[in-house]
C-alpha cells in the first residue's frame, strides 16, 4: 500500500475528524480569499474609476465634493451648478493645459417619459473633452453625434434595438463601455448638444422638463502641463476662483478609500482571530487522533515502517484534507463574490471589480497555500510526536 493510499484510507476511516479538519481549511481559505478579493477588487475599481476620469484635477462647486464621489462611484444622481465662465478663469492659471466642462443630469423617478429611473447622465463638450473621448476612440472614432449616447456596462436599450427614452427624447445607444465596478457602469454619456436637444424635447414630451441653467456647468475637468505640481495648482485655483473646490485625482474618492481602510482593519482583526483558532483546533484534533492511533501506528512501525513514513503519512493525510477543504472554500468564495457582486456594492457602498484572470489565479493560489500551510503546521507537532514513540510501548498501551 502506497503512502497516498494509506492516507486516503485513514481519511475515509474517520469521517468526523476528516470533516472537521476539511471544514477548518474551507473556512480559512474561503474567508481569506473572499476578504482579499473584495478589498483588492474595490481598490482596483477605485483606481480604474480615477484613471477613466482622466483628469489631474476635478473642479466642482464648493460643497459638492461628496456628491460627485457618490455620483462617480455609486451612480447616485447628482446635480450642482457653477458659472461656465470659470472655464476661462481656470485656463488662465499657469500650469493648466486643458479644461473641459461637464454637465451632470439625472432621469426622472418612475416617469413613463424615461426608460430608466434615476440614471446618472454626463454631458461633455466634444470640442474640449479629453476624458470621455479617449474611451470612445476605440469603438467610435468619429465620436458621438447628436442624439447618440454611450452607456456604462449596465446600460441596455429599452426601446427597440438601440433606443432609450430620456425625458421623452428617444436617443440611440451606440455602445457600452468596459466595466469599472463603479457608478460609471450605470451612467449615460452624451454631448452637450444632445443634452440641450433633450431639454428642448422635454418641454413637450416629458412629465417634467429637463432644466439646464444657461451658462452653467456642473464640473470642470483639468489637465495639467507635464512636470507641474498639481497641489500648487489646486491651491492657486482655490485662491483665485471663488465658489469652487478643486479635487486632485489622488484625493478623489477619499471617503471610499477611508471606508476601505476601515474594512481592511476589520478583516485583519477577524483573520487574526480565525487563523490561530483554526490552527489550534486542527492541532488538538490531530493530537487526539495520534493518541487514539498509537497501537495502529505502533503495528505499522513493527512491520517495518520508518519514523519518516509514519510522520509523512499523517502529514499527507492533513495536506489532502486541507487541499480538498480549501479547494471547496475557494470555489464557494469566488462563486459567491462573482454572483453577489452587485449586492456587495450596494450593501457596503464600495465599488468592486473582479481582478483579471491572472491576478485571480495568483490570489486563489495564495489562499490554497495559506490553508494547506495552516493545516500542515497544526499537524506537524502531533506527527513528529507519534513518529518518535517506541513501537513496543505503543502496542502494549
Amino acid at each position, binding site marked *: 500500500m502506497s503512502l497516498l493510499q494509506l492516507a486516503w484510507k485513514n481519511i475515509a476511516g474517520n469521517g468526523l475528524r476528516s470533516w472537521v479538519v476539511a471544514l477548518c481549511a474551507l473556512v480559512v481559505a474561503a474567508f481569506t480569499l473572499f476578504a482579499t478579493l473584495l478589498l483588492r477588487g474595490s481598490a482596483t475599481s477605485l483606481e480604474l474609476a480615477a484613471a477613466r476620469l482622466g483628469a489631474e484635477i476635478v473642479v466642482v462647486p464648493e460643497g459638492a465634493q461628496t456628491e460627485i464621489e457618490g455620483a462617480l462611484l455609486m451612480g447616485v444622481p447628482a446635480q450642482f451648478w457653477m458659472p461656465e465662465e470659470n472655464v476661462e478663469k481656470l485656463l488662465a492659471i499657469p500650469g493648466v493645459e486643458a479644461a473641459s466642462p461637464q454637465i451632470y443630469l439625472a432621469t426622472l423617478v418612475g416617469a413613463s417619459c424615461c426608460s430608466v429611473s434615476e440614471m446618472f447622465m454626463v454631458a461633455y463638450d466634444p470640442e474640449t473633452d479629453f476624458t470621455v473621448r479617449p474611451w470612445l476612440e476605440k469603438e467610435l472614432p468619429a465620436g458621438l453625434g447628436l442624439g447618440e449616447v454611450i452607456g456604462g456596462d449596465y446600460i441596455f436599450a429599452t426601446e427597440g434595438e438601440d433606443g432609450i427614452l430620456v425625458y421623452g427624447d428617444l436617443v440611440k445607444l451606440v455602445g457600452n463601455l468596459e466595466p469599472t465596478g463603479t457608478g460609471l457602469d450605470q451612467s449615460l454619456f452624451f454631448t452637450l448638444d444632445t443634452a440641450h436637444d433633450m431639454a428642448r424635447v422635454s418641454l413637450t414630451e416629458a412629465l417634467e422638463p429637463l432644466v439646464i441653467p444657461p451658462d452653467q456647468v456642473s464640473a470642470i475637468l483639468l489637465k495639467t502641463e507635464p512636470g507641474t505640481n498639481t497641489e500648487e495648482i489646486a491651491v492657486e485655483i482655490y485662491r483665485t476662483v471663488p465658489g469652487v473646490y478643486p479635487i486632485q485625482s489622488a484625493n478623489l474618492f477619499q471617503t471610499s478609500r477611508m471606508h476601505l481602510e476601515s474594512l481592511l482593519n476589520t478583516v485583519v482583526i477577524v483573520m487574526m482571530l480565525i487563523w490561530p483558532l483554526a490552527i489550534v483546533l486542527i492541532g488538538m484534533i490531530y493530537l487526539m487522533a495520534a493518541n487514539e492511533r498509537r497501537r495502529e501506528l505502533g503495528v505499522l512501525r513493527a512491520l517495518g515502517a520508518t519514523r519518516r513514513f509514519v510522520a509523512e503519512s499523517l502529514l499527507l493525510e492533513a495536506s489532502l484534507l486541507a487541499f480538498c477543504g480549501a479547494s471547496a472554500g475557494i470555489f464557494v468564495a469566488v462563486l459567491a463574490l462573482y*454572483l453577489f457582486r452587485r449586492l456587495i456594492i450596494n450593501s457596503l457602498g464600495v465599488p468592486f471589480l473582479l481582478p483579471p484572470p491572472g491576478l485571480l489565479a495568483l490570489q486563489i493560489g495564495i489562499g490554497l497555500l495559506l490553508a494547506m500551510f495552516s493545516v500542515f503546521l497544526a499537524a506537524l507537532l502531533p506527527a513528529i510526536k507519534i513518529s518518535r514513540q517506541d513501537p513496543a510501548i505503543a502496542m502494549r498501551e
Partner: protein
Amino acid sequence: MNKFLGVIMILTALVLAIAPVFTDCESQGKMLTTADGRSVSMKCHWAGIAEIAAAIPLGIAGIYALRGRRKETLRLAGIVGAASGLMAILLATELIGTCGNPAMTCNVLMRPIVLFSGTLGIVASIALFFVAREPEPPPTVAAA
C-alpha cells in the same frame, strides 16, 4: 459522504423553491403596468415560480441520497440532481430569465441566489454520482 451530499441537495432545493418568492421584483412591490392600466407580474416572478418545478426533483434526489443504500440508486439520484440544478440555472438565465435592468432586485438578489444554489446542487449531485461509482458486490448465495 452520500448523506452529507444529500443534505446539501435538500438544502439547495429548499433555497431554490423558497428564496425566489421573497427576492423577485414583485416581492418589492414592482409590477408592470399595461396600457389599459392593469398590473401584471414581471418575468422574474414567473421564473421564480418555475424554480419550484426544478427544486422538487432536486429535493427528492437529495432524499434518495440520504436514505438510499444501493449504489445504482445513488448514481441515479446524482444524475437527476445534476439535471435539476442545471434546469434551475437555465430557467433563471435562458429559458425564462429575469428583468433586463441589471440593477433590479431580481438581478441583484434572486438570480445570484438561484445560480449559487443551482451550482452547489450540481456539484453535490456530481460528487454523489462519483462517490457511488464503485460497483456493488455480487449477491451472495447461501449454500444449501
